[in-house]
Structure formats: structure tokens, C-alpha cells
């Protein structure tokens, strides 16, 4: 089993940390993982993305151009990465701020309105774990218990009080994700 995932959005949306939780969860499940961020100067409201690969085999290239799943969290990333989903693959997006919705017919498209849900739950910071929940619903490649372990591992000790709310957010994500086409 190999799952090649792209997560793309604005810097500050928790894109990299969502990838980190995924990678840690993979480790907890005894899988091989790689986490390759886009990196740049400490500037300035730009876009951020990360490639996460989770596999039962040794991972070859950590940098790839085509993905089994793309999780897209802003319009710029939609424009850039819609075409990089492998035929038959999955695109998950948050509709917030999206002006041009994905159009491809050869992939399965899901929508998870995590921004809206996070503000309903009064906590914009859990946005990314809601998205993660959505992903795990459509791609249950990691057992939930390992995801929780991964969450614990990727959060510094001083934030461990936030684990329950993030668990709830993951749960909520699995409930609100819906298939678009």
C-alpha cells in the first residue's frame, strides 16, 4: 500500500501540521512515511504545501508531481494542483473562499467545509483536524487509535490539553465530508 498525498493552502492554515499528524499517525501504524514541505523565506502570507507519503514499503522519491489524494484549501492551490491528481484519484477541498470549483470528471471530488465548521465550533484552530477527519473518512488508511497517538506525538507536551477538542474535530470531519462528484 502506498498513498501519495498533497496538502496545499495558505501559510498559517495548519497545512504543514496536518501533514505532520498524518505522518506521525503512519509511524504509529508501523508504516514508512515521508513529509516534504515547500519551504521559502519567512514571508509573507504566501502559499504552503506539503507532500506526505505513507507506504508499507521503502519510499523512493519524496518529491512527486502526481497524487492519489490532493487536499486543497485555497483558490491558488486549486488552480495549481487540480490537474495533479492521478486519474481515479481523490480531491478534497474546503469551499470557503473557492470561486472556481474543481471541474475534473476523472477523479472523485469531496467537499469538507471545515472553515465554517470550525467557526461553528468556536475554534478556528481546529480547522485542519476537521479536514483530516474528512480525509480519514474517505481514505481510512490509518486506524483511528493510531491517528490519536500521532496527534499526541506531533503536538508538544504543553498543548496536550488540546487533544480532546482535536479528537472531536476529527470526528466532526468524518461526519460533514460529502461527495460532490
Amino acid at each position, binding site marked *: 500500500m502506498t498513498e501519495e498525498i498533497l496538502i496545499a493552502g495558505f501559510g498559517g492554515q495548519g497545512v504543514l501540521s496536518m501533514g505532520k499528524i498524518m505522518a506521525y499517525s503512519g509511524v504509529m501504524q508501523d508504516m514508512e512515511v515521508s*513529509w516534504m514541505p515547500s519551504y521559502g523565506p519567512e514571508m509573507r502570507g504566501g502559499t504552503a504545501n506539503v507532500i506526505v507519503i505513507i507506504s508499507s514499503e521503502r519510499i523512493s522519491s519524496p518529491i512527486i508531481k502526481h497524487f492519489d489524494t490532493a487536499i486543497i484549501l485555497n483558490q491558488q492551490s486549486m488552480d495549481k494542483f487540480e490537474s495533479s491528481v492521478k486519474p481515479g484519484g481523490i480531491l478534497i477541498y474546503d469551499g470557503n473562499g473557492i470561486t472556481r470549483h474543481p471541474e475534473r470528471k476523472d477523479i472523485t471530488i469531496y467537499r469538507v467545509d471545515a472553515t465554517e465548521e470550525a467557526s461553528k465550533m468556536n475554534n478556528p484552530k481546529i480547522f485542519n483536524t476537521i479536514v483530516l477527519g474528512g480525509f480519514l473518512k474517505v481514505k481510512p488508511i490509518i486506524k483511528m487509535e493510531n491517528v490519536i497517538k500521532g496527534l499526541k506525538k506531533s503536538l508538544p507536551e504543553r498543548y496536550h490539553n488540546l487533544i480532546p477538542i482535536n479528537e472531536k474535530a476529527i470526528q466532526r470531519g468524518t461526519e460533514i465530508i460529502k461527495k460532490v462528484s
Partner: protein
Amino acid sequence: MKKELRLMKGNEAVAEAAIRAGVDGYFGYPITPQTEIIEYLMEANPAETTGMIVLQAESEIAAINMVYGGAACGKKVMTSSSSPGISLKQEGITYIAGAELPCLIVNVVRGGPGLGTIQPAQSDYFQATKGGGHGDYHLIVLAPASVQEMADFVDLSFELAFKYRNPVMMLSDGAIGQMMEKVYLSPQKERSKTIYDWATTGKPATRERNIITSLDLDPNGQELFNLKLIAKYNLIRENEVRYEEFQIEDAEYLLVAYGTSARVCQKSVQLAREEGIKLGLLRPITLFPFPSKRINELANRVKGMLSVEMSAGQMVEDVLLSVNGKVPVFHFGRMGGIVTTPEEVVECLKSKFIGG
């Protein structure tokens, strides 16, 4: 002892491995994409645990000269930087080579020349393997292709550096430095208490004074020293070649690639084999000494080789020398911080060798 499993960036793995290897001193200056090394060390604050000194210097030039001073005391010392900073260190590096001092220099390469880009590249191969500074000298050059190797090669580097009294460079790149993977960390080693008989540690009555220098005004003396260095490098060539092979048993064509490119090429081998092309990969782990003998042997078996590097074609010259005309050799690479895709490699292979 059991190894500890962590998920880390390559840069963080170097830093943690340095503490665990019992390194005495790290001297550095921030530069992307390797700044996590000094940041990690400052946060870990090993002065409180192992006694390791961590210092942010005012420049790369200062940092490498701190390494010179520490190494000359027989201490395990290291620095790290990325391409523009490594260029600044070249003066210090040639003095270190000339004084035969052991140390580790980590280069997390970004694209150049000049200020270039902060994205990954492999365009410092010539600089690392052919000298870099002035004079006849070589570094031992290790090329990690995973976060695990970034950690493991810290210890290996110091082992080789002290064995040959020679500076070692770990030639990584921005992709391996920034990427997170699983890494198994070795247990904490004690810092060494060895006092080397060549080091400046204060002259006891029992030995002659030690002078660390690279100066010899007498041409005959200097030539003798050069000959001694050549003998040392030949010994290193004899004993320390390291490489990894991937699907070469029945290979008709061979990719030669190191570091991130070698990771990409593994996938290219898979893709080519799905199309029925018998492709293999040789990954040099030591770039100096280069696995010339092995490549020369393989040239008897394959129809052609492709050197894949994120550069305008540097290692390809060593492949050509190794093959010595037996089979055609080509270069393929992207530059400017662009990482080659596995598909592009296969395309190039087909166009060069299979005609289409």
C-alpha cells in the same frame, strides 16, 4: 542498546545525532535551508547535558576558523551551512586540509551560482569532491539519501575524519534537509577524553611541542607533504568506497545518482521496468572516494549509463572517467532548485538509448 524511533527533518537529525555522537563543538551561521541545525542545537542546549558547545558565529568565515581551532585541539568539532556559506568557508577548509585536521562540514546544498535559490540542488559536487579551496587536497565526501543517513553519517564522518586526520563533508541537499522521515537514533555516546599526540593541548615534559600549521616555505618539504597527502588519499580510495546498488543483476542500462536524485531514480527504475526496460541504479555513498572501480566493472555488463544529478552535469565527469569509453554515458538533470521527476529520467533514458 535499543535505538530510539523519531520522525524528524534531516537537519534536525544531524543536530540530534551530533549531540548523541558526543560532538564537542558546533559553530554555525544561519542560512536556508539548513538553519534548523543550529536552531535545534540551541533549543536542545546540550551544554547542560553533554557539555557540547554550540555557538552562533558572526559569519561562516568565523565559524570555520572556530572549527580549525577546536579540531587542532583534538576535539570533535563541526559546522554546517548551505552553498553560499560553504563558499565562504573554503579558505578555512583548505587550511584544515593542509593542517590535516579532523572535522565535519555539512553542506545542505541549494541552487547557485551566487545567491541563487534556496531550493534543493546538487550543484556543489565539483566544489566538494575536487577540492573547493586552493591547493591539492581532497575532503572525504559522504552523500546521504535519507534522514536516517543524515543521522548515521555524523558518527561515520567523525570516525573517518579521525582515522585519516582529514576533513569530512556531508553533502546533502535542501530536500533531504527539510524532509521528515522516520529515523532510528543511536544511544548517547560519552564525549571522548582522548588526548591526541598531535593536538595542541599544552606541552607536557614528555613530548615535543605540537605546532598546527599548513605552511612550509621549503619547496622540498612542501612536496614531501603533498606526496604524503596523495598517499593518504590513495589509502582512502582503497578502503573507504561505499555505494548501494539497486536492481543491477540483470540491468542493461544503469543510472548513477546520489542523494535526492538517487531517491528519484529508484522510482525511475520501477517505472522503466514496468515498461520492460531493464534498468538498474548505482548510488555512490562516498563521492570522494568515488566508486570508480565498480562503475568500470559494470560498464562491461550494461549498454549505457545515465548520470542523474540536479546540476548542469558534474558527477557525470567522474562517471565518464570511470567508464573510460567502454559504453556511452550521458547526463540528465534539472537545475535552479527543481527536483527531477522519475518520469523525466525514464524519458531521457529512452531518448538517449532506446531511440524514442
